[in-house]
């Protein structure tokens, strides 16, 4: 049945994007247009902007995103396990305990190597 499928979700997503695009276009049509020199500068709390805006940022962000991917995949693995838990029983519990323990060791390792310290 069409009303139950993921196709509707896709159409909704397209509709949502179209709605946002149309509001932006409508605003562009009706909005005031009076550009001047001062408006066209980057806002840096009233100071004259200096240097490149695309600065180098801390490598910490990459470490966090690596850890995030690890734990997000773990969460994805946990969902099917949670659904099938009624049938798996004690065996499922023990297996997941080992799985989570290994990940926990990874977290503790990252913690002790100071990957979780924000500077």
């Amino acid at each position, binding site marked *: 049945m069409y*009303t139950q499928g993921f196709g*509707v979700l896709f159409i909704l997503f397209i*509709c949502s994007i179209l709605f946002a695009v149309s509001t932006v276009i409508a605003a562009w049509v009706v909005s005031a247009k009076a550009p001047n020199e001062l408006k066209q500068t980057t*806002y840096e709390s009233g100071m004259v902007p200096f240097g490149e805006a695309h600065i180098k940022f801390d490598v910490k962000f990459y470490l966090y995103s690596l850890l995030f991917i690890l734990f997000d995949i773990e969460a994805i693995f946990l969902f099917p396990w949670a659904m099938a838990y009624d049938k798996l029983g004690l065996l499922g519990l023990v297996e997941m305990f080992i799985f989570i323990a290994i990940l926990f060791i990874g977290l503790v390792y990252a913690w002790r190597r100071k990957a*979780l310290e924000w500077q």
Partner: protein
Amino acid sequence: MHDLIYRLLMNLGLPVELIFFIWAGLMFVVISLVGQVAVVFMVLMERKVLAWITQRKGPNRVGPWGLLQTVADGVKLLFKEDIMIPGQDKFLFTAAPILFFAPTFVIYALLPFTDKLLGLNLPIGLLLIFALSSLSVVGIVLAGWGSNNKYSLIGGMRSAAQAISYEIPLVLSALGVALAAGTLNLKTIIESQNAGQYGIFSWYWLSILPLSFVIFWSSSIAEVNRSPFDLPEAESELVSGYNTEYTGMKFALFFLAEYASLFGMSVLMVILFFGGYYSPFGGLLLQKWFHINDPILLEFEMATWLIIKTYIFIALAMLIRGTLPRLKPDQLMGFSWKFLIPLSLVNILSIAILKLTWIGTGLKTIQAGPFTFVVPYIVAYGVLAIVLFLILVIFGNIFKRKVISRIQLQQRTV
């Protein structure tokens, strides 16, 4: 209800593909109306609540009691000049608010507002909501990069780091609900909470998953970038972060999407932990006390309960914003990685043990009441505590020997 509309469209004799599109379009209109109205009221409510906390009156000029203030602001934002600065990546700068906005409204299609007012009743609704809500991170990063502004870049990166850090405890605590209910379908989760017949006592926040609820609440507040976790928008240091350079309608899209996602998260929390559309006395009051079985009235009651519960949580989020100071970045990240994530991992194991005791005692569906959970809970946490204690003892001994040998090594070298 949507079956009715669908059948009506079928009877008109239109081709199936066209019905499909009309159906989706209608759904989007309803969803966006619900979303816009909710957001308009929330913005006004937030301004009023924050004003009362600081002993001001808040907006009271436009319309009676300032009711039309948000509408006036919206019109103002529509007519504002759209400033684009040379040097900005024009495509990314424009695409970012659209990408940020789009998923937040699609989520509404998956949330059951009543048992029939529900866009899509998918078996994996919960997982899909998390997938959609994590898409908005892309918009934030693009906004930060496309703005050609140092503050925006730092704000965007911080916001992305925060969003991904708090998504893990969020998903893991919701996994506790999925584990307890044995399903990812939001409607079944609500029904299984109501199955206990103890009303408020059989909702998950009190009966089975108090720890999950606390983790979910704090990380959902962080996930929607609200105070005290609103570092990406820290006015005093980053000039509102990733949306510094945005004006007019593009800014309005960010603003709208933030409030829309707060509303969505609050509804999701009510569904997962507070019995969704059921009354706190178990079942529906009209049916239970007044013996009224009119389906439309019952729908109204369901929607009323859900909206009341949702707005209680929104009001709490506003009170938190008005009272608590902002965290530091290191505290923010540490709170997620060093506290919430280990806690939620332990929590999942405890729920798994808890459920095993249920299965062991022959309870197929969890019928949680005020007292049925006490003994299994003690058993679950007891077993978990013993296991953790054993691990600590074993690893502690190894660690102790390591430390002793290191000290001896140091003494020898000295």
